[in-house]
């Protein structure tokens, strides 16, 4: 038997494959296809204090081996989450993580404090890297002082496991990882989408209503993997890797680079069973290679020199 479990602080995960925020709804949308409880965790979609309508249509464009999105954190707000969603998803026997967003520090803090009271929410993922909102989001994730400030404030307001989701749209992502670690983050997750753009040449106009959007999918995997490798060597807290993971072999690359866990995003759009298939493939790979614990391969490429 292969041990797939890992922990962030005192929080145990039964295995290291999670769904990524914004790509799995709240979970029930996938019930027809997979058993969410078999996964290591469910990172539900970006939530804010107040309801948000998100950006106008069109919000997506296909690109080579990837896609751009400009959803812009559409969600019905925390009140609705607490009342209508939370009771439903509490049934899942896995770690439920809420992706926390705000336009300013007060928003982030208020939302985190609200979530601290919800028993079945095991952790929050502080999203300081959304490229699709005018205020907040990536602005916090691309400025070291802001990243520090928001992490510090949320850390003071939130008692459970705090994961900070980093933006790849920076010169040196390691600096950001270090700063949020210093401020008490229990884990970092990366990468959020790369800021990109596409143009409809027939219409001679941008493909997205917002002109720029977030690039995800296999196209960004090499960049994501590089950043995960850089960050995992620089911080002591566990790193959740993501960006273009479509198959178990992609996931293995992230573990070898130093990720303690992976999140599966865009792949789920193409195959709603992808997270579970990746988990199965990972387990197979480990037993075929004769490893008894996922930890045996985490950061493997750094070990032999």
């Amino acid at each position, binding site marked *: 038997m292969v041990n797939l479990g890992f922990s962030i602080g005192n929080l145990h995960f039964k295995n290291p494959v999670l769904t990524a925020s*914004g*790509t*799995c*709804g709240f979970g029930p*949308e*996938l019930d*027809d*296809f997979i058993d969410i409880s078999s996964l290591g965790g469910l990172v539900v*979609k970006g939530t804010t204090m107040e309801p948000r*309508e*998100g950006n*106008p*249509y*069109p*919000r*997506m*464009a*296909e*690109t*080579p*081996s*990837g*896609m751009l*999105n400009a*959803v812009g954190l*559409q969600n019905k707000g925390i009140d609705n989450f607490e009342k209508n969603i939370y009771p439903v998803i509490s049934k899942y026997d896995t770690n439920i993580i809420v992706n926390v967003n705000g336009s300013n520090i007060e928003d982030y803090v208020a939302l985190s404090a609200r979530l601290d009271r919800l028993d079945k929410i095991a952790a929050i993922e502080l999203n300081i890297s959304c490229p699709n909102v005018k205020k907040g989001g990536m602005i916090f994730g691309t400025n070291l002082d802001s990243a520090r400030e928001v992490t510090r404030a949320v850390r003071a307001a939130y008692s459970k496991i705090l994961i900070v989701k980093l933006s790849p749209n920076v010169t040196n992502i390691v600096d950001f990882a270090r700063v949020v670690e210093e401020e008490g983050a229990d884990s970092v997750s990366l990468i959020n989408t790369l800021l990109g753009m596409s143009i409809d040449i027939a219409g001679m106009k941008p493909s997205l209503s917002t002109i720029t959007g977030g690039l995800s*999918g*296999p196209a960004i995997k090499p960049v994501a993997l590089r950043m995960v490798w850089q960050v995992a060597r620089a911080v002591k807290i566990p790193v959740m890797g993501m960006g273009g993971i479509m198959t178990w072999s992609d996931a293995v690359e992230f573990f070898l680079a130093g990720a303690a866990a992976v999140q599966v995003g*865009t792949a*789920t*759009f*193409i*195959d*709603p*069973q992808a997270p579970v298939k990746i988990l199965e493939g990972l387990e197979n790979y480990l037993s075929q290679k004769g490893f008894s614990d996922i930890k045996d391969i985490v950061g493997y490429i750094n070990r032999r020199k």
Partner: protein
Amino acid sequence: MAKRIDDFKIVDNKRLTEDLFILELEGNDSISEFKPGQFVQVRVDESPGTFLRRPISIHDVDYKRNTFKLLIQTAGQGTIKLSELSAGDSLNLIYPLGNSFSDPGQGERILLVGGGVGIAPLLFMGKHLLSIGYRPDWLLGFRSRERTIDLEDYRQIGNVFLTTEDGSAGEKGYVTNHSVLEEKRYDRVYCCGPDPMMKAVASYCSRKGINCEVSLENLMACGIGICLCCIVTTVKGNICTCTDGPVFNITELKW
């Protein structure tokens, strides 16, 4: 029914016009639960130009032969590749997706309005209407005679009124210009076609107070409600075309 994901076998690929073709697929036990207006998400292949699935309406269901059809227009890389498939090839689908057209009220007079490949979901609806006792009329618009498909299946369901943009078949102009709209009175319209056409039909219907449902073709990444890319702005705010639609009553839409 619950959504599923499966490989289907293609039993036929028939070219109708220069840019329209029909793929016929072998069904399974789920076929009896398909509803008119629903669609499937097709995995074309793995080339970079077709990274995401492609949404295609369920065009026709043959319960006896246990097959169903997709009517497809070649629009770009994905649909061109689909047009090259042949009997025996297999195709991975997520199905059935979306809501469906609602049934008409007792005795209502019905018009099915389709433009180009927008007729795709309407044949299935037409057959359904026939099976529950209605004889709807058809108002169908194409670019030209060459781009018009064989309408025999449609005539078996009801009268067909035709327009072409160049007047090479039926009346010249757009569907909203057709004289039948002056001459006959309908209680309910089901419509699918290019956006401008649906908007014109919607505005005609609201002027006339006709109950009207349209089937939208918004860009979709997932088709199952997890990406929030396919939204349409409604009186209830931005909602997903793939799960709350693709069929909407025009009174819901902020058009």
